[in-house]
């Protein structure tokens, strides 16, 4: 095999590709060629590296140097200095917020070194389109062990003992699910993988499918053997074209290598897997709706029981697991249940992948041991709140989840502790919010989503979410009434208790948690007609505190409507007739002055500095 002295692991996840990774690759290729280094140095396109806010990203091995935010014009210098002369280039390296020094090695960057990679163990280390790369990192060894040396019962026992719970949101023990299905007698059974990933802002499963597609297949092979399925489907939304492409390449390669199809590895066991592209409806991630969708029908949930383990796809016994759940299966089979339990808590074992986003400095994909405090994730891995603003809340679990306030930041991230706050671990969306976010607006955002995505089959969800949304809209536009919060809470309880599927049963969570932890914000919206974050436009007046204004002119230049006037070094003024409440002045005013203020919506013009 060709011997290279260095590997350039270039992230080609969706995020980095969107910010120009392929252009960087072309520039690298051209530069390596120009310097006759192409036989010495290999460029490897990998799946998502995880540090998405800092793309395009490249890690150079064997040195383990991490480069970020690369531009095509940086490449000649980088190649000459680092790849030719062996002098890593500081200016393209990572720098911790508020620190002056650069951190050259990937393993020393807190964002990476506080993580434990299990489900994501191959991210950035392999070319996802090469089965050999996967096999080189122990790929398909677990499938071989399961097919050749383990009985169905032994597999089920190992998975049960590991304590792993489904990573798709509900947290149901995977081993139990497999056991139910394995005990049902039927000559036809199905194994399904849920790659629908409908939570807004979540990209855990997409990254696994893009960065390591074979691990999904291997997990499914093991699951299929455990329950006795011969056919499997991966349900992926069509909005994930790269995931679909890489999974298809992986399936074709696995078939050719005899790792899928008839008589896998001469074990006598056979399994075929196909991809089913979904149209991207949130409800189609729900298990019974997903199965109807694969059958070619409209994706709508049906009541359970019967559970899919008994009557699932085409009424045959079926197991559905999430992408990340499957990605955890091969290492459990290889290393054993005790190894898996060595991380996490008693009831929430192993690690969990989160899509960390919002007001933190480091945005991206992270994998952490269960039980880690929220504070560690946000302040150490996430690098704290951007622009020195104040933390307000962290939203977990997307439209089915809830907001957790500052006072609960030491909550360990495990299923029980997070549920106790009113939020859920969910599938792994984690949105951090600072003091410029309005909690009523946040609840409204998620309700808009669920009301829109409700399939309409059951009235509590169809009508209930709409009524709640209308009330939230009223509150955010100044028509809120005393008692609204109580009505919202009542309605929530009814929707939770009477909806057919998880969509309705969890849709009120964002509203309930914000009322619970940010009641004062609802009150100021309802009683004072004042959105103190300055987000709900009808409930906001921007004004300048003359005693604080230094007349620096930043707000004046930032205003797109010319609504601000004032001489240099003299206090400025906002003309509320012209102001469109875009917040530009508020953002532009230096934090040390803090002269742009947010008043209630009906504030009398001219009364601002009283």
């Amino acid at each position: 095999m060709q011997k290279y002295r260095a590997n350039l692991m270039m992230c080609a996840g969706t995020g980095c590709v969107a910010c120009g990774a392929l252009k960087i690759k072309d520039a690298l290729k051209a530069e390596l060629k120009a310097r006759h280094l192409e036989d010495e140095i290999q460029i490897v396109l990998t799946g998502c590296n995880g540090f998405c806010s800092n793309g395009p990203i490249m890690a150079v091995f064997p040195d383990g140097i991490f480069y970020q935010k690369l531009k095509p014009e940086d490449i000649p210098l980088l190649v000459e200095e680092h790849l030719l002369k062996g002098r890593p280039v500081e200016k393209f390296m990572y720098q911790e917020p508020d620190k002056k020094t650069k951190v050259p090695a990937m393993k020393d960057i807190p964002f990476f070194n506080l993580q434990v990679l299990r489900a994501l163990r191959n991210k950035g280390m392999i070319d996802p389109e090469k089965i050999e790369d996967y096999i080189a990192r122990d790929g398909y060894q677990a499938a071989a062990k399961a097919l050749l040396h383990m009985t169905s019962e032994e597999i089920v026992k190992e998975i049960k003992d590991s304590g792993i719970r489904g990573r798709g949101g509900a947290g149901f023990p995977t081993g139990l699910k497999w056991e139910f299905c394995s005990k049902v007698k039927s000559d036809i059974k199905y194994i399904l993988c849920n790659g629908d990933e409908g939570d807004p802002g979540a990209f855990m499963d997409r990254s696994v499918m893009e960065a390591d597609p074979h691990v999904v297949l291997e997990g499914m092979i093991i699951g299929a053997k455990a329950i006795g399925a011969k056919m499997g489907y991966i349900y992926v939304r069509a909005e994930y074209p790269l995931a679909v492409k890489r999974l298809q390449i992986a399936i074709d390669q696995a078939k050719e290598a005899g790792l899928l199809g008839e008589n896998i590895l001469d074990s006598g066991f056979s399994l075929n897997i196909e991809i089913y592209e979904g149209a991207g409806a949130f409800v189609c991630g729900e298990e019974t709706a997903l199965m109807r969708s694969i059958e070619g029908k409209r994706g709508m949930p049906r009541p359970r029981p019967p559970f899919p383990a008994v009557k699932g796809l085409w009424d045959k016994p079926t197991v559905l697991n999430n992408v990340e759940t499957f990605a955890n299966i091969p290492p459990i089979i290889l290393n054993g249940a005790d190894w898996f339990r060595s991380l996490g808590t008693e009831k929430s074992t192993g690690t969990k992948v989160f899509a960390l986003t919002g007001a933190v400095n480091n945005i991206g994909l992270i994998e952490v041991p269960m039980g880690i405090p929220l504070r560690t994730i946000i302040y150490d891995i996430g690098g704290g709140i951007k622009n020195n603003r104040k933390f307000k809340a962290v939203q977990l679990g997307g439209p089915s989840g809830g907001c957790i306030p500052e006072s609960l930041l030491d909550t360990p991230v495990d299923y029980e502790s997070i549920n106790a706050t009113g939020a859920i671990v969910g599938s792994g969306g984690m949105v951090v919010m600072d003091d410029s976010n309005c909690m009523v607006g946040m609840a409204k955002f998620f309700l808009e989503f669920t009301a829109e995505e409700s399939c309409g089959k059951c009235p509590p969800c169809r009508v209930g979410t709409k009524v709640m949304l209308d009330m939230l809209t009223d509150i955010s536009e100044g028509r809120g009434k005393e008692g609204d919060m109580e009505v919202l809470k009542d309605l929530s309880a009814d929707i939770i208790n009477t909806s057919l599927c998880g969509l309705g049963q969890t849709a009120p969570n964002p509203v309930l948690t914000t009322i619970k932890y940010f009641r004062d914000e609802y009150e100021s919206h309802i009683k004072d007609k004042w959105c103190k974050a300055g987000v709900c436009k009808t409930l906001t007046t921007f004004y300048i505190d003359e005693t604080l204004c230094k007349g620096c002119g930043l707000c004046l230049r930032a205003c797109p409507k010319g609504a601000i006037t004032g001489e240099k070094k003299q206090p400025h003024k906002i003309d509320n007739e012209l102001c469109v409440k875009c917040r530009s002045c508020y953002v532009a005013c230096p934090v040390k002055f803090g002269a742009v203020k947010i008043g209630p919506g009906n504030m009398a013009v001219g009364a601002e500095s009283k």
Partner: protein
Amino acid sequence: MARLKIEDLQRIKEEHKAASTLREGGFRAKITVHMGTCGLAAGARNIMSALLDEIEKSGVTDVIATTSGCAGLCSREPMATIEIINNPPVKYGSLTEDKIRRIFKEHIIGGNVIEEYALVIGSETAY
């Protein structure tokens, strides 16, 4: 790719060991070819090519080659530093392609320092 048998999984893993060593560490020996302007002018690029050729031909997977800047003794370029785990580093100077090939075979593989080419054995100290 032909249908795989269980043994093939191990074989493919072994074949790719070199790439894994590069990406994951765990190498036994590291050869640094000094490529400052002086090294480059003296022909360090050819030293690297010859070295990579030897590594490839030998089939070893636990040896990596890398570059670094000027080693400070420009008149003796091209130079290379050999670091074998649990052994003091050795610097060789005035290299030629033949010399690096011999160093690879006798020192890296054979474990014997070629004293006639060696400049220093052990790390130089700052005082």
